[in-house]
Each structure stands twice: as C-alpha cells, then as structure tokens.
C-alpha cells in the first residue's frame, strides 16, 4: 500500500466521507454542509488532476485486495478511467454549487447531498474499477444511490418514476451480473487489460462469448438508455434539476456507456469483438437509438423531457463510436463521453434556471426568455449548438471524428445517421433558440425566486456559465494538450498499440 494506491483510495474517499458526514449533519447546518461538500469536491478535483498528470507520465496507480479467492477488488487509474473520473469530479464541483443554490430552503437537503456524494463516489468507483467485479460493485451502488435522488421530491409521480427506474436498472444489473459471473467461470477474474483478454480462448466457446457479450451489453445498455431500454430516462425527469443534470451528463447514462467501452476495449478487445461480429449490431442498435431519441425529442413540449430524449440520442453517439472498429471512431466515441457531459449538463442547468427563476417548464412558454435571462440563454444556445454539432462547439469535434471513423471502418451508412441526427437535433433545438431570442413575451414573468444582482441567483448562474465555457473550450481548443480530444488520443494510442 504505497502512495500511489492511497491516492486512489483518497479520490474515492473524498466523496464517501463527505457523504457519510453529510448524512449525520442536522438539516439546519446549511453552511457547514455546503462547506464540506465544496471542500470535498475541490479536494477531489485536485487529487484527480494530480493523478491525470501521473497517468500522463505512465505512472501506475493501483489498489488491490482480495474479496474472495479468485476475485479481487481492484482500483486502477488508466487513461480511459481517469478521463471519466476527471469528468465526474469536475462536474461534481459545478453540480454541487448549482444544487446548493437550487435547493435553497428546500427540505431534506442532508439526505439529498448525502446520496449525491455517494452517487459521485460510485461513479468514480466505476471509472477506476480495474476488473469487472469491481465495476459491477460500483455499478449497483450507483443504482442504489441514485434512487433516493430520483424520488427526492416524494410526489406520487416521482415515486412512480423511481419504481420504473429500479425495475430497469435492477433488471439490467442482474443481467450484467450473470454475464460477469459466466465470464468469471470461463476465464477467471476478468481484469481490464488494453486489448482485452479473451482472444486466446478456444473457438468452440465463441457462441458462449457472444451470448455473454449480449447479456452484458443489455445490462449496461439499460443505464446507457439504449433503445428499447430507455423508458426510465424520460420518466426520471421528475427529479430536481441538479439530479437530472447529474444523471444525464455524468453518472448514470455515462456509467452505462463507459461500461460498454470497458467491455469492448478492455475485456473482449476491440479486434476480438470485431472478429466475433459484435460491433456491427451494436452500431445498428446505437444508430436506431440515435434516430429514435431525436424523433421523440421533436414532439416533446416539456423542456426537460425534450432534453431527456436528446440524451438518449446523444449517449448512443458514444456507443456508436465504440462500435466503430478503428482508432478514429474510438476517439470520437470517447471524446463524446466528455463532450456530451459538458454540453448536456449545461442544458440541464439552463432548464433548471428557467424553471427556478421564471417558473417555465415548457418550450412553448420560453418566448422572450433571452431578454430576461441573457446569460443563461447564451449558455443554452452554446449547449444546443454543441448538440447539433455546429462548430466550434465540442459536439462538432465528436461528430467529425465519428464520421471519419465510420468511413474508416467502412460503415458509410453511419454518416447518414449522423447527418440525419444533426438535422433532427437542429429541428428540435433551433425552435427553442428562436423562441428564446426572437420572440417577445406578452405577459410579464411570474418570477419564482428572489434573485440577486444577476438575472438569477449567482449560484445557479456561475456553474451554468462555467460548463458552457468548458463545452465551448473543449471544441475550440481541441488541439491543445490535455483537451478531451488530446486525452482520447492518448487512450487510443495505448488501447490500440499495447
């Protein structure tokens, strides 16, 4: 147990300890709770930055102990994992800030922030997991820690949503469990190794491996909201805005997508998965989801629902990238993991701002919001442009790499999917922008909250603008060192050239 493993533990512990302490705090200790939360988030971010620097220099970070014979608990920071950790810890900081502002004077804040931190801890655990078992461990923990967040409002509707969320995720988790166990029986402890560890198996096992892959992808696809396993996601929109933001941008859907990446790259190995013929169907499933999500989003009037269907569509970009055999497609998928997170969290923050400040939940009520809340609206615009894939937003970078990657992999039809999806994205985002900026509101706003100097409370505005700026910068400065694109390239260079 040296420093390099302790720091991994510390990354996990920052949010775990924060969560435990917050649970124990009385409801009224607002300042203390906020301080702990923020301190933990900042500390975690610093630690993660430290590790990122270390991973960049090829330092090994590993923490390992035995759970049962033949099954280890492994935390390991590799390039892919630390990318996801970086995203989570960065967005955790912003979401915490946002949530503090959003939930001001709301009940049950101790519970909320406790589970919130727990949720981040599980996300970090998922990212750092070094084998399938550890991954599974945190994957299920994530399910459990997000349930209280989904039902936080305690209304009948949110409880129903929570129930459906559970149906899906627990069912998916059980499937994943079976896949993992079956794989464990076949080959023993399945550590994540670049290039995968299964290619040496006896060819008579291939049908079995395909079945296991299917089970795991379905299990993970539930969280990644892969069609037709997506129904929980729009329903989970009843949760408070920070939760939606976190669920959509970082924690849950990304955990599913990240898991699929792990399975494809580090368990099966992309070449082996390709030779088994698994990637094509995955790409088809992802494409169907992309189009389906967009088509459904088109018809939603509820802003958050529209964003939710958009998420369903966008997360499948990641899976699409993963299923493209070739380094460029991989880069596209991985980089979209970050980009989508930044953009979508911005959009949800904005939706939350509109709802909190103006009491507006529907697209049709947004007329003229740009005049009342210019900064939020600018952020929303940036996010929406990113989603459509308009340069120089981050979404364009992903789309470009996905497109080139699809051509490289010989799947030209994917290009069509990308274009149609962009058009659909434009079709459901641009009308919102039009309403925000170019229509006037006839009636005065019924303002929900007392705001300070700005158009909305500073705690709501700052994170929104920050994530929007990040989403812009991720695209604009994609060529810089340590940009998401740069990091994805590092991952791919390590993944494809072991």
């Amino acid at each position, binding site marked *: 147990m040296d420093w390099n493993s302790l720091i991994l533990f510390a990354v996990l512990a920052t949010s775990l300890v924060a969560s435990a302490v917050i649970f124990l705090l009385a409801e009224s200790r607002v300042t203390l709770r906020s301080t702990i939360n923020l301190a933990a988030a900042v500390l975690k971010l610093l630690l993660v930055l430290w590790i990122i620097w270390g991973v960049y220099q090829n330092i090994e970070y590993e923490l390992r102990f035995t759970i049962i014979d033949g099954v280890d608990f492994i935390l390991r920071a590799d390039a892919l994992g630390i990318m996801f950790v970086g995203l989570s810890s960065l967005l955790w900081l912003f979401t915490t800030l946002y949530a503090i502002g959003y939930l001001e004077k709301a009940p049950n804040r101790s519970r909320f922030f406790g589970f919130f931190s727990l949720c981040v801890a599980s996300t970090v655990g998922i990212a750092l997991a070094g084998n399938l078992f550890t991954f599974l461990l945190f994957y299920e923990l994530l399910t459990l820690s997000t349930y209280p967040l989904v039902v936080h409002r305690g209304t009948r509707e949110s409880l129903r949503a929570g129930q459906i969320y559970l149906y899906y995720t627990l069912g998916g988790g059980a499937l994943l469990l079976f896949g993992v166990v079956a794989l464990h029986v076949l080959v023993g402890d399945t550590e994540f190794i670049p290039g995968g560890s299964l290619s040496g198996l006896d060819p008579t096992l291939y049908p079995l491996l395909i079945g296991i892959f299917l089970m795991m992808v379905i299990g993970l696809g539930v969280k990644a909201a892969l069609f037709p396993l997506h129904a929980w996601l729009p329903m989970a929109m009843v949760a408070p805005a920070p939760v939606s933001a976190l669920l959509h941008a970082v924690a849950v859907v990304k955990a599913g997508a990240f898991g699929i990446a792990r399975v494809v790259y580090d368990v099966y190995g992309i070449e082996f998965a390709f030779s088994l013929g698994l990637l094509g169907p995955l790409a088809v499933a992802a494409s169907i989801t992309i189009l389906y999500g967009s088509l459904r989003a088109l018809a939603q009037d509820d802003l958050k629902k529209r964003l939710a269907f958009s998420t369903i569509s966008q997360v499948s970009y990641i899976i699409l990238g993963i299923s493209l055999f070739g380094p460029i497609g991989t880069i596209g998928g991985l980089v979209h993991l970050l980009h989508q997170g930044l953009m979508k969290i911005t959009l949800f923050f904005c939706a939350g701002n509109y709802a909190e400040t103006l009491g507006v939940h529907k697209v049709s009520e947004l007329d003229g919001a740009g005049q009342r809340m210019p900064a939020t609206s600018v952020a929303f615009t940036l996010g929406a*442009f990113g989603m459509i894939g308009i340069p120089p937003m981050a979404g364009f970078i992903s789309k470009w790499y996905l497109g080139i990657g699809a051509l490289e992999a010989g799947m030209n039809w994917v290009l069509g999917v990308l*274009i149609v999806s962009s058009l659909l994205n434009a079709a459901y985002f641009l009308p919102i922008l039009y309403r925000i900026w170019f229509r006037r509101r006839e009636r005065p706003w019924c303002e929900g909250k007392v705001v300070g100097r700005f158009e909305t409370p500073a705690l709501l505005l700052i994170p929104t603008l920050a994530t929007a700026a990040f989403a812009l910068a991720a695209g604009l400065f994609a060529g810089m060192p340590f940009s998401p694109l740069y990091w994805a390239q590092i991952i791919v260079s390590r993944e494809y050239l072991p």
Partner: protein
Amino acid sequence: MTGAAGTVALLLAGGWPLALSLLWGVPSLRPRVSRLAPWAALPALLVSLFGAPGFTVDLSWLLFGARLGLTPTTQVFLFLTALIWTAAGIHWRTHRRDGDHCERFCVLWLLTLTGNLGLILALDVALFYTSFALMTFSAYGLIVHNGSEAARRAGRVYLVLGVIGESLILIGLLLAARATEAPLLPMLADLPDAIAGSEHRDLIMASLWLGFGVKAGLPLLHFSLPLAYAESPVPVAAALAGAMIKAGLLGWLVTLPLGAAGLQGWGWILLGTGLFATFAGALVGVQQSRPQLVLAYSSISQMGLISVALGAWMFEPALGPAMAAAITVYALHHALAKGALFLGIGVAHHRTRMPVMLWIGLAFPALALVGLMPSGLLAKGSLKNFAATGASLLDAFPQLPTLLALAAVGTSVLMARHFWLLRLDTGRDAAPPGGWHGWMLLTGASVFAVFLLPWWGVEGHWPDTVKSLFGIVWPVLLGVALSVVASRRLQPWPIPPGDVLVLLTPLPGLAVRAGRALGVTGPAARRLLRHWQARALARYMRADHRFGRFSEHLWRRDASLLFVLLLALVASIGALGFAR
C-alpha cells in the same frame, strides 16, 4: 510580410471582430464596442491589401489544429468581403435608429463578420467549416432583425436551408477528408485532388456543390436569397448579397476539383444550371415589385454566369487559368456592384438635397453591372475569354456566346426595372438624410477596384476588339429598349418572392391564392396557414404521445420484456453450454 508582424496581422484580421464580440459581453464596454463595430473589418482589409500570399500561421491549439493564410484567390475575396462589410458597417452606423435592438444586432454582426472572414482566411477544413457555420447561424439573427412576420419567415426559410446546406457540406467534407492523406487534419488545398481520386467522387461533389449552392444561390436552393434580402436591414442585405453569396462561391472554388480530368458530366451540369439560373433569375426578377427583390434575382442570375464559368472550367481543364481569373474578377466586380446597389436603396429611401448627385451615384454600379464601366468591361471580357482557348467547348456548345449575350440583355432589363422601382420609392421615408459614406465608398470601388487586380497578380482580359466591345454594348441597348416597351405595355406577373418555395409547398401557397381570390386578406390567410401548421404539429405530438404511451407500456410494465429477454438469453446460453 513575414514573422511576428504577419502572424499578428493574420490573427487580427479574423480575430478582431471576434474579440470585439467577446468584449461586448462586458456591459460597461458595450457602447464603445458598438462604436467600433463598423470598423471591425478594417484589419482584414489591410491584410488583403498588404498581405502576401503563401504566408501561414499555424494554430495547433485551435480545433484539430488550424492554419490561417492567404492565397491569391482568397486575397481578392478577403478584399471584397472586408470592403463590403466596412462599407455596410459605415452605412449602418450612419443610418442607425433608436429603438433598434442594437445590442443583439451588434454582436451578431460581429460574429457573422468573423465567420465570413475566417472562412476566407482558413487553410484547413475544420476552421473553414467552423467559420462557415458561424457565419450561417449568426446571419440568421441579422435577417430576422426587424422582427416582422415576413422577416421571421425569411429567417426560417434561410435557417432550414442553411442547416441542410451545412449538413451537405459536412458530408462532403467528411468524405473528402477521408480521402486525403491526413483525414483528421485536412488542408483545403488537398481536397480537390483527394476528391478527384476518391471512390465517392460524385457523391462528394454533389454534396459540396449543393451545400455551398445554398449560399451561392443555386437554382432551386436559392429561395432563401430573395426573402432574406428583402426583409433584412439594408446593410445586412448588402453584406449578404455582396459578401456572403461569394462565400458559397469560394467554397466551390476551394473544394471542387475544378481542373481535374474526366469531369465533363459535371461541366455540363454546372453549365446547364448556370444558364438556367441566369435566365430564370432575370425572368422572375423583372416581375418583382420591390427593388431588393429585383436585385436578389439579379444576384441569382449573376451567380449563374459564374456557374457557367465553373462549368466551362470543368468541361475543359485547359481553360483553368483563364477561368480562374475570370471568376475572380467577376466575383469582385459583382460583389462590389451589388453591395453598392443595395446600399443605394438605403440611401435613396431618405430625403436628400442633392437628387441629381444621388441618381448619378446610383447609376454607377448599375452601369458597371451591365458592363459599361471599367469593372464590368473587364469582367465580361474575362468571362467571354474562353473563345480563345476553349475550342472544344465551343464545338460542343456553339450557342454559348449567344446565350451569354442574351443574359446580358436580362441583366440590363433587371437594372432598368430596379431603377423604375427605386424611383417610386425614393424619398418615401421621412427620415433625415443619412450618411452617404458607405454607399459612396462601395460605388467608387465598384467602378475602380478592378484596377487593383494586378496588385494581387490576377490578370483579367479586357475586351480588346471592337467586335467584342459591341458584343457588350448591344445587349444593353436591347435591354433598355425592351424595358421601355415593357414598362408601357406589360403588367408584371405576381410571382411571389421565394417563387419555388411556394411551389414546393403547394397547399399553403394555394391557400394564400385562394384566400386572395376570395378577398381574404393576407393576415387571415396566414392565420389559416398557421392553424394548419399547428394542427399538423399537434397531430405529430399526439401520435408521439400515443406511441410513447404504447412503447413505455410495452417496455415498462414490470419490465416484463426485460425478463423475457433475460430468460431467453439465459436459456440460450445454457443450451449452448450444454451443446458443447
């Protein structure tokens, strides 16, 4: 121009308007920024005049790694763009009224300008495409600036076409980039060769041709132009018609493999569409009842001529150098003249104390356009130059010179119609006289800017024989004569602006017509239209809701399907396990 100074100059050319737009974000600086905004294109103008082609700046941190630089062609484009934007900016500054949404306008203006300049300066695909998109989407805000129903409709049409265009361009660029050596960091200069050698050559060319064609007023994709020009503020219209339409042309020029062998088919297509645009633009244009619309169709018509030149180039690669020069010259000439004409509309609306001077000024660009001024002479001369070198083209298409001459008749008629309409409009606005500076700048440039061409190394072809001079003059005379006759005898057809659009959406168009026939006024028809639109939307939403209910029911109820899936899977795995 080398080293640090060059780097700074290039960066400033594109970055200065961007920086201004960012500074606008600071509320206290806004008044200052809006004072500086008209001059935002000045650095670019200077670079275009004093910059040297071949110098590049690598911005590895930007996007995938961007590269800025100038080529002889882009230098001309940069000049005309910067000049038009500056002039339009001056015009806007002197004609600004209180109560405009000046602030939003200001920042969108700067962003559009950034995009327009950036796409000219960009040497790599990513930055080019980024700038192009920035221009497209920012311009939307400028077009709908008035906020009127018509402006919003124009904006909608513009945006839909813009998005489709962007997508087409993206397809083309992606496929083309894939064919280059470095698909992740493609340079524009590599594209033509890559496209010519690509297995998807025709697909790429089609997407790029259509994609840029949206901007360049390609027939059947053109209908955003008249709508946008007519409804946007005058300086915006000038920029749109002068500069941004040329961005589409530039897109063609830098991406299409114009000089490659074996593109005769494409040559025919471009020639055909170009000629069609030329005549159709003229025919539809003369029916219009507003000067802006006439000018818009004139632009479509003129771009058709350029398209003819492109087609000729493709048809016969040997024409390359001559056609390149011709296109550049024609682009410069047409852009400046059209810009001047549009600004002239703005000037003419105001009261003036010097009507004679005004009309003389207004006449200059029009005369240039029909070919009676130095710039027009040079442009027409260059364009008709293929007779000397392109024998095979003339063999294949001997009627071409005649058709070009007839096109000039159309241009003349359009100009005549323009002045006729402008005369009716003049001084209608009670506003105090605005500044003439911007307009005068462009007017002057439209006549004399061609003399700058040798400075950039572009050699046009002056019509050097009497025959060719006559060939330029007689269509003008014929056109004027026709106009005089027509203005006495003929009534214009009521072809609505955005002609084909109406045909494309026959139902609403018919509804409007039927409404008119029954005496229902425009607003009522529009209300009806909106009602239908709302019904369609509602139906879609209802269908979606039902589908959502159905699908969610299917997938959600106790997640029963999951279980079935699981059981099937487990069973199959078990069976497989036993089978082995």
